[in-house]
């Protein structure tokens, strides 16, 4: 017969101070782990949620990023006539030739300068990115020196409010709108008219990339292959979604640091949990012996103490998650290894992160509780009763 779990709960409550301190120790380890996992989750979301599976991104053959792309504008009309491209609101093929540069902007809090991606696009470019929603002002107009900025750029950099002017290229640009890209990689960009941008950076007659919107997933695949296989074009097609998914490698250094730090802290916590559980067993020597006399088996005692340790860990995990919840959504930035500009992303405590945190705590509780529980189960009944 198993010992009821309420026995463990009441024991934990009886020794409040000890329980709380051990649980808090586990909670600290869990918070550190959650923090690093939430960073990676936020970063992954920025990339995974970016890009539309129907958009085909065209780059110069051999180039792996828009920044190092660049092809002659004379190829663009050929791209526009390829079969399988959806029609835009004017009945024209939905395509956009784009120009991407990286500029340097000063941070609002004065902690230095950061690289920001500026994207020049054709009017269809906006239509192809329905996930970006205008939250303030209006979109930029073709032929005007106007830009729209993402919400997070507006928050993180000075001179990025509506009516302000930004200085880059050959002169000033008027900020006319703010858009929300829903945490995707576009969240780190400034958008404007492609022709204005190209002339400012002396890059007329070329595009760094082109976007084609396919009618359906099958023609997207066909379109991608057609672009890549055409020997005259010397271009390469990518699925926009896959292109961004590949950039998640930017999070690798954070991941590695997270594993190392989490591992070392976990070992420290395991020793602390072990200490608490050994103390619990030592205090209850006579009690355990009595349980044995009443008829509870050794496995039942073992399970009971492991359970108590798991409960302790669970308490720690809950406290850790609660401590970290206020940080959910906090924005931070890291450098994108592909575009050399800053990716802005939010700390995201997803259900998956919370689940991993709980699992992590349970492992600590299990490892920390096993040896003391074993010790409790192996105790000699007579000696224990006499002590």
């Amino acid at each position, binding site marked *: 017969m198993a010992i009821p779990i309420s026995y463990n709960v009441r024991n934990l409550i009886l020794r409040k101070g000890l329980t709380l*301190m051990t649980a808090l120790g586990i909670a600290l380890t869990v918070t550190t782990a959650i923090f690093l996992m939430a960073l990676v989750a936020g970063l992954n979301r920025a990339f995974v949620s970016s890009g539309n599976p129907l958009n085909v991104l065209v780059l110069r053959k051999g180039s792996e990023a828009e920044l190092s792309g660049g092809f002659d504008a004379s190829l663009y009309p050929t791209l526009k006539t390829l079969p399988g491209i959806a029609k835009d609101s004017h009945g024209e093929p939905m395509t956009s030739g784009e120009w991407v540069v990286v500029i340097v902007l000063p941070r609002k809090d004065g902690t230095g300068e950061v690289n920001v991606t500026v994207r020049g696009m054709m009017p269809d470019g906006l239509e192809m990115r329905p996930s970006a929603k205008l939250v303030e002002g209006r979109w930029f107009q073709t032929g005007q020196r106007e830009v729209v900025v993402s919400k997070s750029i507006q928050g993180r950099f000075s001179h990025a409010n509506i009516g302000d002017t930004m200085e880059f290229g050959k002169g000033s640009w008027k900020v006319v709108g703010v858009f929300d890209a829903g945490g995707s990689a576009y969240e780190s960009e400034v958008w404007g008219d492609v022709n204005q941008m190209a002339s400012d950076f002396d890059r007329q007659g070329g595009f760094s990339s082109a976007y084609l919107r396919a009618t359906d997933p099958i023609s997207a695949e066909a379109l991608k292959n057609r672009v890549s296989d055409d020997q005259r074009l010397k271009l390469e097609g990518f699925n926009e979604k896959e292109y961004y998914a590949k950039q998640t490698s930017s999070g690798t250094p954070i991941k590695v640091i997270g594993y190392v730090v989490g591992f070392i*802290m976990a070992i420290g916590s395991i020793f602390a949990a072990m200490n608490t559980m050994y103390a619990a067993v030592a205090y209850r020597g006579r009690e355990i012996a009595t349980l044995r006399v009443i008829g509870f088996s050794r496995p039942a005692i073992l399970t009971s103490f492991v359970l108590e340790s798991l409960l302790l860990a669970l308490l720690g995990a809950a406290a850790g998650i609660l401590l970290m919840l206020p940080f959910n959504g906090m924005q931070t930035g*890291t450098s994108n290894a592909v575009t050399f500009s800053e990716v802005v992303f939010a700390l995201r405590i997803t259900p998956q992160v919370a689940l991993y945190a709980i699992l992590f705590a349970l492992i600590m509780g299990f490892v920390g509780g096993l040896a003391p529980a074993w010790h409790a189960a192996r105790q000699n009944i007579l000696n224990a009763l006499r002590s």
Partner: protein
Amino acid sequence: MTLSSFIVRNTFRNKRRSLLTMASISFSLLLLTMMMSIWRTFYLDPGPPDAVRRIITRDRVSLAFFLPAYYRDKIRSVPGVVAVAPMTYFGNRYKDDRASNAFAQAATDPDEYPKVASDKIIPPDQLVAWQRDRTGALVDVELAKKYGWKIGDRITLSSPYFPVAPELTIRAMYKIDPPARSLYFSSKYLEESVGWFKGQAGWYITQVDSADHVASVSQAIDELFRNSPQRTKTESQQAFQLSFVATLGNVKVFILSICAAVVFAILLVSSNTMAMSIRGRTREVAVLKTLGFTRQRLLAIFVGESIALAVGGGVIGILAATGMLQWLTHSSLAIGIPAGMRVTFPTMVVSLLVAATVGFVSGCLPAYNAARINIVDGLRHIG
């Protein structure tokens, strides 16, 4: 029996509890010491001896953009500049893609680079041999040791950025402390093999006549290119290296918050242990009081015990961190870890002080409670 031996005996009377506590504290201090060493390497270490006089000029936006060759002569014309060398990052692959075989490879000007990097010690005859052979390479002695290279050996490199595989002959080896583990070859060779790269360089590295002029010369250089098609960013070598660290995000805050979590964790562990240990000795405390031990004495005994535990765990943790960093920087995993990263004596002292402080703080409250015990109640206590 002296006070100290009394404390030591008491510390180890529940061996398992003390050892577990010390193990827990040692792992936390291992992490703390490593974090502090990283902090020191990034933000406090002055680097190689001449690094304070070296500045680096690069494209204002990104290292991904090359600078034109004529920038070099313009930089040379700035007063205070001693020598300027072009530098282009070629890649870090060798033999295969494995990280353990990665080391930095850069193209530079063999004639002027040794003047800029005057802290790299190169035997004069080898230097001349390197300068005469356009396909020659200059390598770190430590790197040569790792691969068993000798002068005259031939190696082939490959790069993700340049579509060539230059074949190089090792002509010279340099020594520097801490080791830089990198390879240099002639930028002329690279320019000849890659057509579109001709007349460009990744960045320029400049030696300034004195450390006091670093700021003014950097400013003068950037001012020089203010209205050029490509504006520049000039900063000290250390700031340049830090900018790679900065791309990871707000590293300072990361390190600080991890350190804070660790210190708080050991505080919890240590005070937990002290509370457990003192509670089990209530009757003993009463006996000691009856024997004439004063409150101050009892307080000292318990706080001393707590400090002994924390410092004991701390010493183990610090030694482990020292060993681990030593092993890391010398192992094949060392890619991206600055070779100068090690646990210095001041770091050890600070770590130990942190441990002692935590021990002191965590011992105070339980010890105070114990010292205040009423003798009669204490003697009656069953536990």
